[in-house]
C-alpha cells in the first residue's frame, strides 16, 4: 500500500531555485539576541561534580543549582525561574567554585567536569547575607515571605545602614482596573520584563529604564499602562516574586484588611474561553474569585495566560438574583 498522500515526505515541493548568495544574510547582519545557538546533542553525557564534599552526577547542561537540588541542598534564589532565561542579577544564589576568583551564580552556571563547589562557606554566607541586607534596606519586602525566610537563615540585619539610606520607596501606581504596580516593592529581578518580552509575551510594554540605583521598570516615559503597549495578559504578575505587581482585587482586599490566604481555596481548572485550553488555578476567598494563576510546569503554556484567562472571570460571580433581574 502506498502511503497516504498527505505525508509531507511524499509531496514534491516545487521550489524556485534559491538565489542563495543574494538572499542569504550577510555575516555582519546581527542575529537576534537570545541564547547562544548550540548544536543539538544526541546523547546527553552525565557530568560528575563535587558539592560540599558529596559527589553528584547530573546531565550535561545542568546548572549548579540543579545539581545541588539533586543532593537536597536548598539554594536561595530570587531572579531565577524555571520558565525564564536566567538573568543572574540578584546574586543571592552565589556559591564558591574552587579555582574561581569570584563566587559564581548557581542558577545559571553550567556544571563542568570536576568542579568542586561549596554552598555554605563563610564567603558564601557573607555575600548572601549582604545581598539580602542590601535588598531589605532599600525595598519593601513585606509581601515577599520567602525573603523573610532567607533573611533569618543568613542573619541579615538590614537596619545597620541607618535611617537616611536611599530606598526605592514611591507611591503605588493604580492606573487601571486589573492590576497595580508598587515599585517600592521591586527588587529589579527583570522577570516581568522577560515575561512581557522575549520569554513569553513579546509585547515589550515595560523595560528597565535609568541606570544604577535609579534603574527601574517603566513604560516609555513612564506613561500609564492604558497608554502603553500592555495587553493585560498579567504574565508579569505571574512571575513577580515580591508582590510589586498585584491583582487589583488582591490589592484592594489588602488595603481593606480582608486578604486572608488561610481562608482561600485553590481550584485547578481549564480556561473556558478558547481552544488553547490553558490550565488555571483559581484562588477563591469567601466564595469569590480573588486571583488567577497558572502552573509554571505546564509543558505548553509555562504558566502564561492571556487577558481572558487571567482576568475574565467576573461572569462566574454574577449571582442568580442579579441574573434574574
Amino acid at each position, binding site marked *: 500500500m502506498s502511503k497516504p498522500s498527505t505525508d509531507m515526505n511524499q509531496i514534491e515541493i516545487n521550489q524556485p531555485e534559491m538565489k542563495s548568495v543574494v538572499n542569504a544574510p550577510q555575516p555582519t547582519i546581527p542575529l537576534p539576541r537570545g541564547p547562544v545557538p548550540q548544536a543539538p546533542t544526541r546523547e546527553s553525557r552525565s557530568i560528575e561534580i563535587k558539592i560540599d564534599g558529596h559527589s553528584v552526577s547530573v546531565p550535561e547542561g545542568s546548572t549548579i543549582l540543579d545539581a545541588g537540588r539533586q543532593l537536597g541542598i536548598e539554594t536561595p534564589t530570587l531572579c531565577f525561574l524555571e520558565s525564564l532565561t536566567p538573568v*543572574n542579577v540578584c546574586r543571592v544564589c552565589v556559591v564558591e567554585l574552587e579555582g574561581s576568583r569570584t*563566587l559564581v551564580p548557581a542558577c545559571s552556571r553550567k556544571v563542568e567536569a570536576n568542579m568542586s563547589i561549596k554552598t555554605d562557606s563563610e564567603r558564601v554566607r*557573607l555575600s548572601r*547575607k549582604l545581598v539580602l541586607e*542590601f*535588598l531589605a534596606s532599600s525595598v519593601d519586602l513585606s509581601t515577599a515571605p520567602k525573603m523573610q525566610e532567607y533573611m533569618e537563615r543568613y542573619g541579615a540585619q538590614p537596619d545597620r545602614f*541607618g535611617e537616611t539610606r536611599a530606598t526605592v520607596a514611591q507611591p503605588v501606581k493604580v492606573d487601571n482596573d486589573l492590576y497595580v504596580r508598587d515599585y517600592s516593592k521591586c527588587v529589579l529581578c527583570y522577570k516581568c520584563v522577560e515575561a512581557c518580552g522575549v520569554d513569553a509575551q513579546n509585547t515589550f510594554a515595560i523595560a528597565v529604564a535609568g541606570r544604577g540605583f535609579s534603574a527601574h521598570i517603566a513604560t516609555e516615559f513612564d506613561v500609564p499602562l492604558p497608554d502603553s503597549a500592555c495587553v493585560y495578559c498579567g504574565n508579569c504578575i505571574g512571575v513577580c516574586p515580591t508582590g510589586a505587581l498585584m491583582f487589583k482585587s488582591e490589592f484592594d482586599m489588602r488595603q481593606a484588611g480582608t486578604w486572608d490566604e488561610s481562608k482561600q481555596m485553590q481550584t485547578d481548572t481549564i480556561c473556558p474561553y478558547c481552544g488553547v485550553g490553558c490550565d488555571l488555578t483559581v484562588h477563591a476567598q469567601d466564595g469569590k474569585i480573588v486571583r488567577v494563576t497558572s502552573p509554571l510546569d505546564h509543558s505548553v503554556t509555562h504558566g502564561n495566560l492571556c487577558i481572558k484567562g487571567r482576568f475574565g472571570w467576573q461572569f462566574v460571580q454574577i449571582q442568580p438574583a442579579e441574573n434574574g433581574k
Partner: protein
Amino acid sequence: MDLHLTNAQATAEERAAVDSLLGAPDSSWHGAQRLGADTRSASNGHAGSQRHRLLPVLHALHNRIGWISPGAINYASLRLDIAPAEVHGVASFYGMFSLTERPAVVAHVCDDIACLTRGADKLCADLEKKLGAAGSPCAGGRATWQRSQCLGLCERAPAALVSAAGVKHQERVLAPASADSVASLINEAVAGRMPAAPDELSIQLSVPQAEKQNGSALRLLQRIGHGDAASLADYQRLGGYEGLRKAIALGAEGTLRELSASKLLGRGGAAFPTAKKWEALFLQRNLLQEDFRRAHYVICNADESEPGTFKDRILMEGDPFAVLEGMTIAGFVTGATKGFIYLRGEYPLAAERVQHAIDIANNNNFLGKNLLSKSFDFNIEIRRGAGAYICGEETALFNSIEGYRGEPRNKPPFPTQAGLFRQPTAVNNVETLVNVPGIIREGGAAYAKLGTENSAGTRLFCLCGHIARPGVYEIAMGSTLRQLIELAGGVAGSGKLQAVLLGGAAGAFMAPKELDTPLTFEGTRSIGATLGSGVVMLFDDSVDLRRILLRIASFFRNETCGQCVPCRVGVTRQEEALQRLIAAKPLGSAAQELNLIREMAQAMRDASICGLGQTAASALESALQRWSLFA
C-alpha cells in the same frame, strides 16, 4: 513588530535627524506618509536586524535637538522596529542623553579628582557666580552648564567640554579652562560662532617626552609630534603599515607566532595575553567558511572613561593610523572582516581624526576589499559611546553596540566564544593594538627583551594631579614609580607627596614609602595594587584624601549599571557610609562603620557580575589600609 505608540509625534526636525542617518522611510510601517499600497501589505518583519543602529539614531537626535523627546522616541521605534519602552530604556541608560528639554548649548565642567587638584573647585564656584547654579539656564535661556566626571583631559586640568546641538552639531574642548573662557565660549556657541576644530593636540602639554627626545627610544609615541597625524604619507614615512605588510607576508600563523613571542599582555586592565585571544578566533576560522551565519569581529575598546586616564585619546589624536593598522592585523589573523572602534562620546577630536584616517585608508586600499591587493577584506566603523563608563567593560560594550542597555553579560560564555552579535569577538584596548604593528615589524623576540620577564615591552602612563609636567609617558616596564615621577619633573603643588593613586578609580592608593615599587604587573600585584589603565595621579599634602575618596565613591554610584544587587546597592551604601564618616556622624562608632565598609567590599568583590562592582571598593580599601583617615 506590532508597535503600540503613544500620540506623541516627532517634529519635522527630529524626523530629519533620524532620516539623515537611515534614509527616508520606505513605507508607513516605518514612519512615512500612509500610501494606498501600505494598506494592502505588511512590511515590518525584520525586527531586530536594525537594532544595532539604535545608539547612532539616539546620537543623531541628541546632536540635532539637544534632548530626546517622547515624539522622537516614537519615531525611532517606528524606524527601527523596536518597542518604545525599550528605546526609552536604552536612551535613559546613557549619561549624555537628556530626556527632558534642555538648552542646545551645554558646558560640561569636570569636577573629578585630577581636576580637583588643579582648581576645579574655584572654576565651579566662579561659574556659579557668573552663570548661576549648575543646571540652571544661562545665556538668555539658550545654554546651561553642568558638573561632569573626568573628561579624559586630566593632563590639562581643569577641563571643560562645550557642546552645541543643531543642524551642524559642534563640540569644543577647553583645557585648561577658566570661568571666563567657559562663559565666552558659551556665548560664541549661542551665537553660532563655535571654532571649527574641537581641540588641538598640544605636544608640549600632553606628550612632554616627544618634545625632549627625537622619538628614538619611544615605540608607542614614536610618531606623535613628528609628522602630520592626518597624513597617510607621513605615517608610512615613519614606518607605518610595514607591520601589516610583514604580517601578510608571514601569514596568520606566522603573525600569531611573533605576537606570542612578544608576550604582549592587554593594556585595558585585565592583562590577558593578546596572542591567546586572537588564537581563539583563529582556531575557529574554518567554521566561518562552513556556516554563512558565522562572523568574527574585532573591536577596539576606545571607551576610556577611567578617571585619570587619557592615553588612548592621545594615541587616537596623535597617531590614528596606528590604531587602524593594529586592528587590520587583528582582522587578518582572526578572520574578522569587520572591526568596530567603540569610541568614548566625550572625545570629539579623537573621533574626527580616526574617522579621517578611516576615510583615507579606505581610499588607498589599506581598508576595504582585497586590501593591499591581497584576498582579504577588512572594514572599520566607529561607534560612539554616550556617557557610560560601564560600556568599557567588554560585554557591556557588545550590548551597547547591539542597541541594548550597556549591561555586562555573565561570563562564560567568553567573548572569544560568543561576543558581539553572539559571534566570536576579540576586544582589545587602543594601546594594545598600537603595540602590534611595531611588534610584527621588529619581531616578537625583540619586544619581549624590553621590560621584565613577566611584563614585556613598554607601557603608557597618564601622569596627572600634583606632578610638575603632567602628560602621557612611555617607559619600559620595570622602572619604579619614583623614576617615573622624576621623569615627569617631580611632585608639584606643595612639593610634599601625600599619596599616589595608581590605576584609576578602580585602582589603589600608594604611600610615599612605596615609590620604589617596580611598575610591572607582578610588582604592583605584590603590594595589592594594579597598573590598571596606567593612571599615576599624585596628591600633595594639602589634599584632603577623604574628599578624594568620596568623589571616587560617588563616581561608582553614578556609573554602576544597576543590574546586580551587590554592586547597585553596595556602591550606594558605600558612599553613604563614607559620607557619615566624613561628617563625623557614624552609626555606632567609626570602627563599626569601617567594619561595615569592609564587609560590603568583600560582598561586592565576590558576588558582583563584572569588574566595576568587583573593584568599586578597592581604592577605598587601599587608603584605609595605609592611613587612619577616620580615627
